[in-house]
């Protein structure tokens, strides 16, 4: 096929990029080579628009064994134990075919984790849909949840936490971010860097079909009226085969057969072989006629770009082929030597001994374009909403409206479709601030949570980025874990648009600021651009997945009120910031104004104090205050527990609504036994933490003195009906 301008465009390459390719090759590429460049140079694989900004992320720390740059991030949790984790997006395929898009998203992220030697022990997800009224939302919600459950349950890894949000910004472009966490031995971690010349390059797993050809290019293209035509590129996941693949790989990893290993994800055989070779500064030669194919007459082009799932590429030590082959035979998986490492520094593709394409590795990897795209700062909108001008509403009615809304309703309808208990180490299931997984056969446990705040990020990206790291950090503290590190999935619109690029740049700056201050480094992540349709971009949505450690795990801490007659302490100062609150959004549909300020000093101080209180066993339950403000957090502590609360009205009579619905940061609610009050106050005073004694726990009622009194059974009902009614 002749390479015309149209062909180049169809491959997602700009004219100047094509010119650059010709320069690097010193000639015109053939179609196969063009396809390979298009896969490696698109946004999803090359990070060309984001690399410049990501370089500034805070990625170091004593607890970091491996930061960004590998298949997943690795942290040290002591005793030769390591946790390997990452989050990734699968937004565009999930919009087109929600079940398979979500399922293959789970499959892909699992491979990223077990390819490094970790047995996956938990799955999390952050899913965002358009407004519930939008015609596609219901079927997308059903499809995505079924897909996540269908894959995770079948492979036998518990899906333990997540978040689900609805916002019209995602009407034409949903977000599906999947996170996997695995456990490995520190001295048995596998990397993707190829080493040694003339080593066997082995293909294992499912056969190659025509799935997803140009999926990586699709991820970098916006949706338009022709999106429906992009359908054939959706891959079908096979969780059963992935389970076999996972067991086979983990079995092979028990000895020293593997030099390096990488899963075949976006751009399949192309990206895995190029990345392994690039990291090892070697060349790689592949004999494509050896690639196991599912369909007849597959061309080299199709083989290199196929995104068939459940496949890995392994570089094997000499003399280990026989024993490795036996393991894969036991698990009924293909195992084929398809090539070797060379010292040429080129990617050489042969078919029946005839060279089909030859490209210098660094042209595809290190010399891939890096753009310094123009970006504009977001001006802070200091406009304050005049509360008095708004239509009056009763406190109780506002609370009920929020608790019964799509975004605040109990998510049991979703989480009951996920097996949370398989592997028997889930100590705290979804529903609390963070979930807890015990490390198998050990006394320690990890806490995990995934969070985002798109509205804050839209109104002020810098503050939004700063805030969401803090919120995630707070969630881990609330269950008694020491936050260790994060993975981030940065979902943004079109980076060629300066204000979107600015949102990205500023969110990253904000994330970095909090991450540095809190010693909470980023160890892995993913960038998803071009989330938007017909020139409308989504709100910037950085998603933060955090992991913390509970070194001596002997009981769980959650947010549910445990008994009557206990004291409720509010840690952190309440200023009553209502702009960008759930209250303004749900009750008045107001989206103007700036997000609440983030004070990192208070954030760190308050959190460390709460952790100290938890570790000293001085508290019954803990809940952090976030979206919805104080009153929603207090109500959540009662819903699902057998007890209620009685809260005193604030002494300094500020606007009642500001006090109860304001979303000031760095705040926690503690349920303390009267007998521990002195000890707790001593710790807080010693650390200069602002706190207030705001009430007591009681039976039956959620009460705010002289303002409202609701039966907790009624609160439960209000909060548990949205999904069933939908």
């Amino acid at each position, binding site marked *: 096929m002749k390479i015309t301008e149209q062909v180049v465009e169809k491959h997602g390459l700009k004219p100047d990029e094509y010119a650059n390719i010709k320069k690097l090759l010193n000639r015109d590429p053939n179609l196969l080579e063009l396809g390979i460049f298009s896969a490696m140079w698109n946004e999803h694989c090359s990070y060309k628009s984001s690399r410049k900004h990501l370089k500034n992320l805070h990625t170091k720390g004593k607890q970091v064994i491996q930061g960004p740059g590998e298949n997943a991030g690795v942290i040290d949790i002591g005793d030769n134990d390591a946790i390997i984790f990452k989050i990734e997006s699968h937004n565009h395929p999930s919009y087109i075919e929600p079940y398979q898009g979500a399922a293959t998203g789970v499959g892909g992220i699992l491979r990223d984790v077990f390819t490094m030697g970790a047995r996956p022990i938990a799955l999390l997800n952050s899913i965002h849909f358009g407004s519930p009224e939008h015609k596609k939302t219901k079927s997308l919600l059903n499809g995505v949840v079924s897909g996540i459950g*269908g894959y995770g349950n079948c492979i036998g890894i518990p899906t333990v936490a997540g978040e689900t949000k609805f916002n019209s910004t995602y009407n034409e472009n949903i977000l599906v971010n999947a996170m996997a966490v695995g456990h490995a031995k520190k001295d048995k971690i596998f990397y993707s860097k190829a080493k040694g010349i003339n080593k066997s390059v082995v293909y294992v797993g499912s056969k190659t079909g025509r799935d997803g050809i140009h999926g990586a290019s699709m991820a970098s293209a916006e949706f338009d009226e022709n999106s429906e035509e992009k359908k054939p590129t959706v891959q079908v996941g096979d969780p059963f085969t992935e389970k076999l693949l996972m067991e086979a790989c983990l079995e092979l990893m028990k000895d020293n057969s593997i030099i390096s290993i990488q899963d075949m994800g976006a751009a399949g055989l192309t990206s895995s072989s190029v990345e392994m070779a690039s990291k090892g500064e070697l060349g790689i030669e592949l004999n494509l006629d050896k690639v196991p194919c599912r369909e007849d007459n597959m061309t080299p082009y199709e083989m290199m770009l196929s995104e068939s799932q459940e496949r890995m590429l392994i570089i094997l030590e000499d003399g280990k082929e026989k024993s490795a082959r036996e393991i894969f035979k*036991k698990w009924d998986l293909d195992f084929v030597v398809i090539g070797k490492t060379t010292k040429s520094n080129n990617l050489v593709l042969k078919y029946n001994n005839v060279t089909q394409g030859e490209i210098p590795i660094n042209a595809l990897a290190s010399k891939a374009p890096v753009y310094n795209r123009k970006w504009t700062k977001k001006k802070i909108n200091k406009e304050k909403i005049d509360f008095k001008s708004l239509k009056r509403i009763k406190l109780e009615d506002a609370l009920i409206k929020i608790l019964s809304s799509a975004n605040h309703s109990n998510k049991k309808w979703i989480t009951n479709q996920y097996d949370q*208990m398989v592997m028997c180490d889930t100590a705290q299931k979804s529903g609390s601030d963070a979930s807890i997984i015990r490390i198998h056969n050990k006394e320690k446990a990890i806490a995990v949570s995934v969070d985002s705040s798109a509205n804050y990020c839209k109104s002020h990206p810098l503050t939004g980025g700063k805030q969401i790291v803090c919120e995630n950090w707070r969630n881990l503290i609330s269950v008694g874990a020491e936050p260790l590190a994060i993975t981030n999935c940065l979902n943004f619109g079109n980076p060629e648009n300066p204000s979107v690029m600015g949102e990205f740049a500023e969110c990253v700056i904000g994330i970095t600021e909090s991450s540095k201050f809190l010693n909470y480094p980023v160890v892995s992540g993913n960038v998803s651009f071009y989330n938007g349709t017909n020139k409308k971009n989504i709100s910037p949505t950085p998603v933060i997945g955090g992991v913390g450690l509970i070194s001596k795990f002997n009981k769980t801490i959650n947010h549910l009120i445990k008994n009557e007659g206990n004291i409720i302490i509010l840690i952190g100062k309440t200023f009553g910031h209502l702009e960008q609150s759930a209250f303004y959004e749900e009750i008045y549909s107001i989206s103007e104004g700036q997000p609440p300020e983030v004070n990192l000093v208070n954030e760190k101080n308050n959190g460390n104090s709460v952790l100290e209180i938890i570790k000293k066993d001085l508290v019954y339950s803990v809940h952090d205050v976030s979206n919805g403000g104080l009153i929603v957090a207090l109500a959540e502590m009662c819903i699902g527990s057998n007890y209620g609360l009685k809260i005193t009205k604030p002494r300094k009579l500020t606007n009642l609504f500001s006090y109860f619905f304001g979303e000031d940061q760095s705040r926690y609610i503690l349920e303390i036994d009267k007998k521990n009050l002195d000890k707790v106050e001593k710790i807080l005073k010693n650390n200069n933490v602002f706190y207030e004694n705001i009430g007591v726990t009681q039976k039956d009622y959620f009460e705010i003195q002289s303002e409202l009194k609701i039966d907790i059974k009624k609160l439960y009902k209000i909060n548990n009906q949205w999904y069933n009614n939908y």
Partner: protein
Amino acid sequence: MKSSVIVFPGSNCDRDIAVALEKMQFKNQMVWHKETKLPKSDLIVVPGGFSYGDYLRSGAIAGKSLIINEVIKAANEGCLILGICNGFQILTETGLLKGVLLRNKNLRFINKDVNLKVSCNNSKFTNKYKKDQILKINIAHNEGNFFTNKDHLKELNDEDLIAFKYCNENGEVDTESNPNGSIENIAGIFNSKKNILGMMPHPERMIDELISNKDGINLFSSLQN
């Protein structure tokens, strides 16, 4: 007591049941489905999971594996056989237990802790429980809706072969407490000789108070009794 846990491609709960068995002092061995001989066992467990991905029908393909012939032989010789969740599905596909597990009534996968009533405590599996004792045990399945014909149902009732029924926290066996549409809220049954128990709930998930509760323990101590 000696136990064997059969492992099929796709079995997920094999490690979980092995941990529970070892905790309860069984001498346990894992047996790969391609084996043609079973080690001498007092108890054989067919674990939960998604053997063969649940493709075609849950348990259908595992039911045709080589090792199953040995399990059938052992069952006929009186060996104790325990099938949990997918294991229960496999036992029905082999005919060792009558009946069939259909798709959950609401067509969704369901994972939650449910109340179970011990309907029959006169067996090697349930003698440490009190009759009508209420347990809280975790279920996690897509096809847990037990169905059988009128004759078998009569046999189950007449011969006291229903091991567990879904119930509410007061022990009432009603529609609301039935998570998947099973006929008569049946959660587990015995064969006529009572040496085989098939149950959808996961007792191996209820042996550790730090994770859940201890309601599953007595099933294993009954076997040791």
